[in-house]
């Protein structure tokens, strides 16, 4: 297993081609835009060595019998699925933001399970290759990007009918030794500071989409892979410190557009190639694994937000007001509901045909559906409690000015005996945790809200419910 520092050192060896603000970033470790995301990912490594989290953050590999970082584990039982939820909350509490590494973890579990089912139908040998890849990741303790979302072009058209086929990753050429892939994956969390990407299809497909039904793994610095790092609302803040709110760990995960321009992938790393009827299954598997997490990592992040709001109320002198206490209750209610459904999805998880455990689908969908609302609502309450200074505070540079600084401290003072600079820090934390970039992740990550609603209806036993009602009111069918 790697420590956080060893993980950071390992990134130095990567030759990932990455661009931001019109320039190529040669050294991501020194980039103020990317560094906070690296620091956050490093926590997923360090936490595996801390006594109070070793049990949550490590597991024993079923393939090598060695102790591994849990972020590389194939889920063996319901306890693993519960520990996943608790681990993510614990890291959210430490970082206050997305720590990126769960996406690739879920992708490995999803691909592991579906490759087994493809093999069962076609006699292919995909799962062996997936296990080889998983072992490679476990042995090196690498960070993997979960590459599902294609740019998708016209959402009303299937992949093969898109005017530009590159809006879906596809096989451009089949060779004896492997495949050439072209296209892109959008919004890829942690891509700038990961080692590998595990690509999966993003929609269910039909026979004509054969070339688009592809799953594979590739190093992020493979020839032909280019990253364009995404802009965040707090980019400029990263050139300072205090105004970032969370200067060490930043906001969300640091997403990038990952472009595959005729990238060669050897057959050993190809896990699906043309089996279109399994594309939808893989999308659902990954999505359900990932949806469980939103009541875990976000519960930890929201713990920090609730704490910041409670502290802010004290600085404002409003902590005892009944409506403030009521708002704190609302925040707790929503957050613990999120975590409860994530835990339930874990406790009620079941083995898939491949043997690895899978969250209870409805509870995972509920978890994700609720975060698309609750995170916004909790943020609204945090804004309400904190006050308008969230939007109007002067900059940290004015604060440092010998004339303006004291004026800012004088006029932004809160309750007696509270430190005004600390009040400003809290305001910045709340502002950055509830800004655009942070919230959109809760809306669209692991699929837009409608995707969960479709899942909820699909799995609801309406026929039975109707019969229950009919029986009670005396209707004979």
């Amino acid at each position, binding site marked *: 297993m790697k420590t956080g520092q060893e993980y950071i050192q390992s990134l130095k060896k990567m030759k990932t081609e990455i661009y931001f603000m019109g320039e190529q970033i040669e050294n991501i470790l020194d980039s103020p835009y990317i560094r906070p995301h690296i620091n956050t990912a490093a926590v997923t490594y360090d936490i595996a060595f801390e*006594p*109070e989290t070793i*049990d949550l953050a490590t597991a024993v590999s079923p393939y090598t019998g060695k*102790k591994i970082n849990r972020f590389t584990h194939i889920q063996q039982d319901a306890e693993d699925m519960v520990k996943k939820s608790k681990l993510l*909350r*614990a890291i959210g*509490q430490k970082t206050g933001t997305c720590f990126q590494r769960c996406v690739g973890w879920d992708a490995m579990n999803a691909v592991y399970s579906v490759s087994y089912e493809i093999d069962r139908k076609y006699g292919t040998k995909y799962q062996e290759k997936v296990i080889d890849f998983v072992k490679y990741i476990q042995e090196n303790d690498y960070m993997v990007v979960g590459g599902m979302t294609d740019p998708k072009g016209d959402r009303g058209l299937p992949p093969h009918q898109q005017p530009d086929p590159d809006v879906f990753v596809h096989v451009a050429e089949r060779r004896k030794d492997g495949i050439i892939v072209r296209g892109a994956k959008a919004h890829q969390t942690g891509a700038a500071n990961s080692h590998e990407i595990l690509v999966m299809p993003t929609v269910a497909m039909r026979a004509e989409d054969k070339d688009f039904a592809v799953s594979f793994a590739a190093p992020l610095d493979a020839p032909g892979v280019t990253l364009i790092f995404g802009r965040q609302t707090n980019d400029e803040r990263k050139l300072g410190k205090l105004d970032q709110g969370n200067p060490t760990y930043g906001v969300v995960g640091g997403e990038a557009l990952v472009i595959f321009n005729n990238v060669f992938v050897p057959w050993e790393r190809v896990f699906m190639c043309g089996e279109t009827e399994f594309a939808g299954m893989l999308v659902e598997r990954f999505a359900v694994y990932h949806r469980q997490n939103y009541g875990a990592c976000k*519960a930890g992040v929201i713990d920090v937000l609730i704490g910041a709001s409670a502290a802010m109320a004290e600085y404002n002198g409003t902590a005892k007001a009944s409506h403030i206490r009521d708002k704190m209750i609302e925040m707790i209610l929503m957050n613990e509901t999120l975590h409860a459904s994530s835990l339930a999805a874990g406790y009620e998880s079941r083995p898939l045909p491949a043997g690895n455990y899978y969250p209870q689908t409805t509870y995972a969908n509920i978890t994700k559906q609720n975060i698309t609302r609750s995170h916004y609502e909790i943020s609204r309450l945090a804004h309400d409690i904190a006050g308008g200074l969230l939007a109007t505070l002067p900059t940290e540079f004015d604060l440092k000015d010998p004339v303006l600084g004291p004026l800012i401290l004088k006029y932004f003072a809160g309750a007696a005996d509270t430190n005004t600079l600390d009040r400003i820090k809290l305001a910045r934390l709340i502002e950055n945790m509830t800004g655009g970039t942070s919230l959109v992740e809760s809306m669209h990550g692991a699929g837009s809200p409608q995707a969960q609603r479709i899942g909820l209806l699909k799995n609801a036993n309406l026929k039975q419910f109707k019969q229950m009602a009919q029986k009670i009111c005396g209707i004979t069918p």
Partner: protein
Amino acid sequence: MKVGVKFCGGCNPYIDRKKVMERVKNMLPPGKYKFEYFDWDDCAAFIAVNGCSLACVRYPASQKVIVVSGFEIEGKQYSEDSLASAVVEKLSALTGDKIAP
């Protein structure tokens, strides 16, 4: 002597679990006890450190266990500061080892 230690996830901690265990460690004679956080086979005793009264930590049924659950140890309330010495006392009773707290 090998003593197993397992912490809960810490979603709702009323006590500083890490600090409590650091205190326990400091109260024990140096070098005599080895805390083990992962491989719990053949432990002389096992300490389950829960942040709240829910006490979600699971432990091997075969172990001699001390369960800290927030301010409570086995039904008795302690202040946060006195939790560590209570743990040491229980450890002494479980292992038959005379440890002066």
